[in-house]
C-alpha cells in the first residue's frame, strides 16, 4: 500500500492533499481503538479543511482515549484516476489505512452538489453504494450537517442520519456502538437501537407512498418503536459545549488559512430565503471571556496570524466591540489580526471596522441580496439603501476602494424593475466613490457585483415556491449585464443550470436518489466546481431515472401538500414558516427577534424569556 501510494503521489497535483501529518493531527494506534470513525468532507482537501465542524468533531472524538477519528476527503480527479489504475483503495490521512476498515464513515452534508462525490467516495472505498447491500463487515455510513435536514434524496445510500448539531450526539452513537460490539454486533439490531436516540433517522425503517400527481401521500414507519417525527439535536449552552482548543494546521494553502472560533450559533434576523437562519435557531452566544481564552489557546497551538470570528452574522454579537478590542489589544504586538466574516450592511459598526483595519486592510463585501427596497422587504432582509450608502461611504473615506456586492435573482415576486435595481445600486456605489473631493479618492476603484440564482430551500418560508426557469434566470442576468456599461464595475452570475439541479435535489424526495446514482454512473463528480459540472449528463441522468426536474424545481406547492422533509422537526414550526411566506407576499417585514419574540416555535429560547 505504501509503495503504491508513493508512486501515485509523485504523479498527482498537490500531493500534500493526501499525506496528512499536519501539526495537531492525531495519529493513534488503531489496534487499541474500540471505535474507529472516519470523518469525510466530500470535497477536495483544501475545502474540507476549512470547515469548522470537522475540527470540532475530530477533536471531540479523539479526546476519548479509546475512540479514533481520522479524516478522508474526495481525491481530486487526477488522484482518482491514479488510484483506480493502481487499485489503491481510499484511505484515511492519519494511519493511511483503507476507509473500509473503519466502524463508521460519517459524511458531512454541506451542499447538495457534493452528493455525487459521496457516492464516488463509497465506491473508491469499496463499500456498497446502497445501504441495503451492506453487511456487518462494512462501515456504518452516516450523514449529518445542514443538507441532512432533507435527507430523502440520499436515503437509499446512508444507513442513518444525524439531524441537528453533531457534537451533541456523536458520542452517544459511538458509546452505543461500543456496547453492541462488546455483545456481538448485528447491523440490523444496532440500527433499531440507534433509531431510538433523539435526532437519529434510519431511512430503511420508513416507507413513503405517492399520489397519482406525484406528490407524497404518506410516509410511515414500518417497524415498531421508531419515532414518527425526528427532532433535531442541539447544544443548549455554547460555553459548556466542547470547543477545539487546537486545530489541524494544513501544509498547503486552504480556503481559510486562519484559526477559527465560533462566537455564536443561530441567527435572529429571519431572512426568508435563508435555511441556516432557520435551522440553527435559537441564538446561543459564547461569553467574551470564554472566547478570549479560546483565541489565546488557538493562536498558541497553531501559530496562525489571524483569528476569524465565525457565525452567521458576526456583527450581531452582543459584546462585539468589547470582544474585538480585547482581542486586538492582546494580539497586536504579535502581529496577529482579527477577521470578521459575514458582515451585515446595517450593523457595520464604524468603531469595529476601525479596530480591525489597524492591522490590515482587505476588500469589503456587502450583501444587500436584492436590488429594490420592495424586494428586500419581501425577503425580510432588513437593510435599507441608506444603511448601505452609509457603510460604503465610510469605507471609501477610510481608504477602501474594492467593494463586492452580493445579490440574488429569481426571488419570489421579482419584477424587471427589481432586477434593474441591482444595476442602480451598483452605480450609486460607484458615484459615492467618485463624488468625493479629489484628495480623498485613494486607490483604484473596483466594484464586483455578483448575482446568484435563488434556490428555494426546505425549512424556509420560501419552501413552497417554484424556482425561476433557466431561461428566466438568463434573461434577468443579461438584463443586468447589458445595462452595466462601466468597466470599473464587473458583473458575474452563478450558473442557472447548476442552480436548477441544486433546486431539484434540495427539495427532492427519495425517488431523486436514483437520478443522483445515474449521474454518478455517468461520471459526474465535483458538481460544485464549474469546470467539472456537466449539465448534459445530469439531464440524461434525470431522464434515465424518470425524474421530471421541473416537478421538483419549478412547481409551486400548496400548504396542504406533504413535503418530503415534513417528518423532521427543526424547532421552528411549519405554521411560522407559512405565516412568514404569507407576509412576504404582502411585503410585510418581520422584526429581528432580539427586539421581541416572533413566535417561530423554538422551545427554550432565550429570546422568549428575556424579551417577552
Amino acid at each position, binding site marked *: 500500500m505504501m509503495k503504491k501510494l508513493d*508512486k501515485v*503521489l*509523485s*504523479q498527482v497535483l498537490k*500531493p*500534500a492533499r493526501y*499525506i*496528512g*501529518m*499536519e*501539526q495537531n493531527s492525531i495519529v493513534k494506534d488503531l489496534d487499541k481503538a474500540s471505535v474507529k470513525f472516519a470523518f469525510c468532507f466530500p470535497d477536495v482537501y483544501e475545502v474540507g479543511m476549512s470547515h469548522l465542524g470537522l475540527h470540532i468533531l475530530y477533536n471531540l472524538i479523539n479526546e476519548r482515549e479509546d475512540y479514533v477519528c481520522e479524516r478522508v476527503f474526495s481525491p481530486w480527479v487526477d488522484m482518482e484516476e491514479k488510484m483506480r489504475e493502481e487499485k489503491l483503495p481510499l484511505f484515511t490521512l492519519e494511519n493511511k489505512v483503507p476507509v473500509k476498515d473503519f466502524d463508521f464513515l460519517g459524511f458531512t452534508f454541506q451542499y447538495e452538489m457534493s452528493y455525487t462525490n459521496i457516492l464516488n467516495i463509497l465506491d473508491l472505498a469499496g463499500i456498497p453504494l446502497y445501504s441495503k447491500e451492506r453487511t456487518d463487515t462494512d462501515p456504518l455510513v452516516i450523514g449529518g450537517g445542514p443538507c441532512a435536514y432533507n435527507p430523502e434524496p440520499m436515503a437509499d445510500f446512508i444507513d442513518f442520519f444525524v439531524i441537528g448539531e453533531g457534537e451533541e450526539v456523536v458520542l452517544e452513537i459511538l458509546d452505543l456502538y461500543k456496547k453492541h460490539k462488546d455483545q456481538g454486533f448485528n447491523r440490523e439490531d444496532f440500527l433499531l437501537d440507534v433509531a431510538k436516540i433523539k435526532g437519529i433517522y434510519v431511512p430503511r425503517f420508513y416507507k413513503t407512498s405517492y399520489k397519482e400527481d406525484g406528490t407524497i401521500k404518506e410516509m410511515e414507519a414500518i417497524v415498531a418503536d421508531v419515532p414518527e417525527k425526528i427532532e433535531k439535536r442541539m447544544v443548549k449552552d455554547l460555553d459548556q459545549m466542547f470547543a477545539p482548543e487546537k486545530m489541524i*494546521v494544513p*501544509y*498547503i*494553502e486552504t480556503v481559510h*488559512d486562519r484559526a477559527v472560533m465560533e462566537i455564536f450559533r443561530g441567527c435572529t434576523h429571519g431572512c426568508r430565503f435563508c435555511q441556516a437562519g432557520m435551522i440553527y435557531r435559537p441564538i446561543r452566544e459564547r461569553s467574551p471571556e470564554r472566547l478570549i481564552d479560546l483565541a489565546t489557546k488557538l*493562536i*498558541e*497551538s*497553531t*501559530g*496562525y*496570524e489571524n483569528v476569524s470570528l465565525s457565525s452567521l452574522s458576526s456583527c450581531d454579537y452582543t459584546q462585539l466591540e468589547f470582544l474585538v478590542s480585547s482581542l486586538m489589544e492582546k494580539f497586536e504586538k*504579535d*502581529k496577529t489580526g482579527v477577521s470578521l466574516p459575514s458582515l451585515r450592511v446595517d450593523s457595520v459598526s464604524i468603531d469595529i471596522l476601525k479596530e480591525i483595519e489597524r492591522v*490590515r486592510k482587505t476588500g469589503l463585501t456587502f450583501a444587500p441580496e436584492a436590488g429594490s427596497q420592495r424586494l428586500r422587504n419581501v425577503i425580510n432582509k432588513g437593510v435599507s439603501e441608506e444603511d448601505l450608502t452609509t457603510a460604503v461611504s465610510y469605507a471609501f473615506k477610510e481608504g477602501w476602494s474594492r467593494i463586492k456586492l452580493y445579490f440574488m435573482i429569481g426571488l419570489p415576486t421579482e419584477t424587471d424593475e427589481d432586477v434593474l435595481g441591482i444595476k442602480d445600486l451598483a452605480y450609486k456605489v460607484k458615484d459615492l466613490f467618485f463624488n468625493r473631493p479629489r484628495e480623498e479618492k485613494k486607490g483604484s476603484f473596483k466594484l464586483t457585483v455578483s448575482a446568484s440564482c435563488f434556490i428555494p430551500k426546505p425549512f424556509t418560508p420560501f419552501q413552497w415556491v417554484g424556482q425561476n426557469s433557466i431561461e428566466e434566470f438568463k434573461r434577468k442576468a443579461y438584463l443586468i449585464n447589458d445595462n452595466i456599461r462601466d468597466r470599473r464595475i464587473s458583473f458575474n452570475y452563478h450558473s442557472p443550470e447548476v442552480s436548477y439541479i441544486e433546486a431539484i435535489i434540495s427539495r427532492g424526495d427519495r425517488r431523486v436518489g436514483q437520478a443522483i446514482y445515474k449521474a454518478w454512473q455517468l461520471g459526474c463528480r465535483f458538481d460544485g466546481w464549474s469546470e467539472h459540472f456537466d449539465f448534459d449528463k445530469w439531464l440524461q441522468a434525470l431522464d434515465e431515472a424518470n425524474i421530471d426536474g421541473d416537478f421538483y424545481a419549478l412547481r409551486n406547492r400548496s400548504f396542504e401538500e406533504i413535503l418530503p422533509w415534513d417528518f423532521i422537526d427543526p424547532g421552528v414550526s411549519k405554521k411560522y414558516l407559512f405565516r412568514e411566506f404569507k407576509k412576504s407576499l404582502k411585503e410585510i417585514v418581520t422584526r429581528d427577534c432580539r427586539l421581541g419574540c416572533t413566535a417561530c416555535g423554538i422551545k427554550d429560547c432565550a429570546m422568549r424569556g428575556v424579551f417577552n
Partner: protein
Amino acid sequence: MKLRVKFNKKNYLKYISHLDLIRLFQRSFNRAQIPVKYSEGFNPQPRFSIAHPLSLGIESCEEYMDIELEEKIDPLDFMESMNQILPKDIQILDCIYPKDKRPIAAIISLAHYEISFGLVEDMDMDEVKGQIDRWLEKEKIIITRIRKRRGRQIKREQNIRPLIKKLAFTNNKENGFTIETLFKVGDGGNLRPDDFIDALIRDNSNFKIDKEDIQVKRLGLYIEKGKRLEKPIW
C-alpha cells in the same frame, strides 16, 4: 543578527512545496516565539530565506536557511524549541551565527544528489555504466526549456554538460542502479534533477528506465573553496 540553520525534509513531507515550507516555518517561529525580524511596510513579513528550494517530491538530508533575528538567542534553545513544534520529518539539525555575512544562497554553488533508477528490462550494469560514461564524454548535452511568459511560450536551449560536476555509480540494486551526482546550483548555473533525468532518458535508448520508479534525494549543499568543497555548517 543572522542565524544559519541546517534542517532536513524527509518521507511524505517531500510532497510539501517550497511555499508550504515557508508557511510552516513562519507559523512554527510564531509558536516557538522566536524573535524573527519583520520586513517594513504595509504587509510585514518575517525575514528568513531558504537556499535553493527543492523541487516537489525530492527528499533532502541537509537544507539551509538564514533567519534575521531581532536579538541573539541561544542556538541550542532555538533547536530544542523548534524541534518540539516541527513535524518529525522536518527537523533542525544544527545552527550557527555565521562569520561570513553573505546570504546563504550566494555562497552555495553545488548540490549533491542521489538518484536511483529502476529498469524496465534487466540489463548488465557494466553496460549501463559504460553507456552513461560515454554520454558524459560529450561536450554538449542540450536541453530545451520552455518558459511561459505573458501567455507566450519561449523556447530556450541550454547546454547542461558543464553543470554536471561529478557523477559516480554507487551501487547496483535489483533491476536498477543508483548514482550520486554534483550539480551546479545558483546564479553561476543551475541544473535541476528532472532536467538531467529527462536528458538521460532521451539520449540513452539502449536501456529502458522505468519513469515511475525513479527516486531522487538531495544529500547536501556545498560551497566551493578553490578545489575544496565545504558544507555551510559542518
